[in-house]
């Protein structure tokens, strides 16, 4: 127990964000266990880990399924800090959830302080086309404005569920590879240099 476990596999931390009831947990459980949970039970914060083979490399995806409810807004900052990639989920059947993503995006950018953090906009409940409130074009437009991909999923039919997780993980991995390159090659990054000035006394 005292020994540090050897984990040769890369670990990528994905965070599910979005308003309450849009299907974050449903997507996660579908991805993890191939099951679709019908009844709704608000999440507080759930943690999952899955080992997958991504482009021939075994990686672990750590999923933090956060609470969508406004009640938990205050503790989100803490969670966001540890995330390396974000699945920002809204329901295509609920316009409010689509409007809410703007706030999530801003909060993530503020906490991570990084415009290019791996981020995927996900329109869930794609099986309920007849109750659609948010048009594909509208969502696509928002995603383009942010410079992120937009994917429509259905946790019920498992449509695009694997795709969003794999796409995001791929993005995170390529980001990490870039980062190691720059940090190995070009010395310390900017934020560290700034810190020198902050010494008091």
């Amino acid at each position, binding site marked *: *127990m*005292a020994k*540090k*476990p050897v984990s040769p596999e890369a670990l990528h931390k994905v965070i599910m964000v979005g308003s309450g009831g849009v299907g974050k*947990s449903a997507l996660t459980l579908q991805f*993890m*266990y191939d099951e679709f949970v019908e*009844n709704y039970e608000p*999440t*507080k*914060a*759930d*943690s*999952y*880990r*899955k*080992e997958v083979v991504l482009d021939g490399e075994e990686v*672990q995806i*750590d999923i*933090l*399924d956060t609470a969508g409810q406004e*009640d938990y807004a*205050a503790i989100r900052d803490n969670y966001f*800090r*540890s995330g390396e990639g974000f699945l920002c989920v809204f329901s295509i059947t609920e316009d409010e959830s689509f409007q809410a993503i703007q706030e999530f995006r801003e909060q993530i950018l503020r906490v991570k*302080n990084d415009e290019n953090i791996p981020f995927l906009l996900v329109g869930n409940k794609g099986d309920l086309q007849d109750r659609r409130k948010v048009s594909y074009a509208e969502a696509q437009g928002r995603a383009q404005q942010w410079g992120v991909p937009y994917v429509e999923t259905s946790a019920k039919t498992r449509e695009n569920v694997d795709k969003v997780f794999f796409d995001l993980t791929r993005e995170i991995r390529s980001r990490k590879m870039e980062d190691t390159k720059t940090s190995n090659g070009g010395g*310390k990054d900017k*934020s*560290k240099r*700034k*810190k*020198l000035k*902050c*010494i*008091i*006394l």
Partner: protein
Amino acid sequence: MAPAPVVNGISPKEGPPGTRVTIRGQHLGKTPNDLIGLTICGSDCLLSAEWKSPNKVIARSGPGKGRGEIIVVTGSGGIGTSLVQFRGYHETIGPLKESAVWVEEASLNTLTWGHRSLSPSSYQLEDPLGLSVEENEKKFPEEDLHELFPECSGDLSSENFEPGWFLLEHHHATSFDDLRVGLSFLRRKVEGQKEGQISFLKSNIGSVMEQLDTLFILKEKFEADLKARDIDPTIKVEKAIEESISEAEKLFHDVLARREKADATRNALNVMQRFKFLFYLPGSIERNVKKGEIDVVINDYDRALNLFGKTDVAVFKKVLAEVELKISELREMLWKKLEDMSIGLDQQKKTIRNLVNLEIADDPGWKAITVHSNFLNEQLIACKTEHLKAESADMDGSSKHLDSHHKHKHKRAASGTYNVELLNRTPQPVLCVEELTEILSQRFPDLWKLGQSYFSGEFQIKIDPGRPQEFKGIVLSIISLVCTLLRSALLPHTVDKNQQWPQHHKTSDSVSTWLPHCLRYIRAAYSTLIALDLPSDALNIFSSLVFDLRLHCMSTLLCQAAEQIKTLGLKENWQIEFDQNGGITQLPSMFENLVAEVMQLVKDSVIIAEQRETPLLDNPAAKKDLNRLVLKLLLNFVEALDNLGLTNEDGDHTLGVSQLIGSSSQSRDKDSFGAVYEQKLLCTLSNCRHTRLTIFPRFINLFERHGFPRLSEPFEEAEMAFKHLEKRILDTYIEQKSDPLVGTIEPSMYIGNFDWDTCLPPTDIRPYAKEIIFSNIITVHSEVYKVIPSLVYPVISQIVEIVAEELSRLMSCVTKFSIAGNQQARIDIMAIQQTLQHFSTKNAVLYFNEALETIPPLDDPFDLKVVDEVLKKFTARNKLQLKCFNNPS
């Protein structure tokens, strides 16, 4: 051994002791008993573990604190590993923490004030190294720290403080130089504190000594004082303090009271503000109910229950009670709404869902189903009663208004060509059937869909185990009710007496013409039912109705046709149409058309099996029925022909054949405007033959084309009947022809007191022989030949035989021949024999020879020569007339 358990999911990932945790992973035990160990953060939680599946276990977290593994032990797989961690923490309720329980803020404040100084947060504001942590956004992962420094802590005030942890936690991104500067800062600070004390003492030594001296003096004085007065001075001081306290209290009592009051008011206001949601709830519920936004109400109610359901605060309880009242009113209202059938299925489903969400005690889904089924039952029965009433009104003939109303409503005409004499209004049973099927296909799908939703758990109602059976019973009873009602209207013979449509005897005829029409309606309803995917039990009830109806329809159609055929004979006009096979009247073609028509109709409406119908004729009873009916159809025609041919309505048929006697002139006149009896006989005979030989094969062809099974039996039987009839007609015809003919031979032979003994030498054959040949046999020949050429031989030969017999009889009666008489007799008989030799049967030849033998032989060759000459003359003279006998076929 099974694979070791792996935990890779935890929900939620943190929480205070007692949190309900869903643990997911693989191989978490094959059965509940296989799960033999579960620790969360080091505390054993097996007791609370609830095994759901090999992939899911639910447990409550123990008192373990901090991050820790979830270890599952199974009997089959051993000790497992955990990819995720749970963090236990002890929750303290502070001013920023939302709580479902009312927290007394006053006591909380003093509590926090008392401990605040020790709370780590104030420490962390100051960094002991004097370095800023503001920019240090990237945190070192906490779990790694746990792994690096087990049993340690980064808390400065902690007993097991580990500097490495602290540095990694707060300064893992700080450069080495910075850290060095920080260290020197820390040292300086420590040094500063140490040095500060000593130098302070040094510089102030004088005053320190002075203070010490003063303290000694004070001590001495105090002791002296004690000795002198011997009283504890503190008592006095205590008194004074108490006095001052009471004074102060007096002074501030009012102020404090006012403050307390203000605080209370503020508290109350705060409460109001904080929980205004609850206080507004009764009002908003009412408003939303009025607006019809039940969903909102349910949502609010749930939220209120979640937040305040377990409250101990009296005010909340009161408001909640009010809310409960409103909700129960709403429940009642919705419950009533369920009974309203005018709202659509969707609306009803929504109401059910709402009721379920309102946690009603009863089962709204089931209630809706019952209401639905009762409504349906009532409607069906009401429909029948209404039509019964209308019918009895119709029967009285007093309700012209209703009549016209219905005529207006149902202007469509019934199908088929059988409705020539159709009543111009639709009979009530048919209207009733139309309405019943309409009700069924409109209402029943709703009920069924409701049931489907109910049992598929769409309403999330716990379903009683007996319910599916009961529902099935309801569905079956409705279907069978509909079937019984339909049967009572259309198929009265298949239901009990008391179920029957009354006065049926009057309406049955009119109903029967509408049967195909009704069948279409019922089939439409049936296909709706099929589309609903009903259980086959229910469908079978209906399909048996459809089957019976088809059968009934078929037999009715065929019976009608048979009846019509029976009366076909009345339409005979005896106009003969000739073709290469002889002559027939229009009767056979009428018969053929009728049969073809009815078969087309039967095929269209009955035989063709629609969705989920068995081919009617696969049923042996139905097939038998069909056979019987077709046979009846055919036999009826036989009967009609029989009636036509063999009924001698003219009465007098002693048709004179002999013009020599002249008794027939009267009847000949009579026949000038119609066919004579013999001709009718011939026509009928010809019709029979035509039907049997030409139309029957066509029928068989037709039936085969229409998909009927082989109907050889009835056809064979009918053919037999036809043959029999033909023979009878033929016999009658021959009898009819030969009787008078034979009867006239004798009178004609002896006309004018002729005597074979006293006759003149012969010059020609005698008139009676001519009459036999020319007027009689040639007439018959021509008559038959005209109508049925193929019958010429059998008819003529029969007649010839009879004639020959008669001749032989007459000859044997002659007592004496003169030479001339002898010659004459020979000439006559031989002329007849020769003329008719092609039509002579063995018997006829025998008879002729017999006749010749009775005549005494002529010895004189001269006499014989006379005979030959006369005969030659005769054949030469009548060559033309006799030609028709040359070719018997």
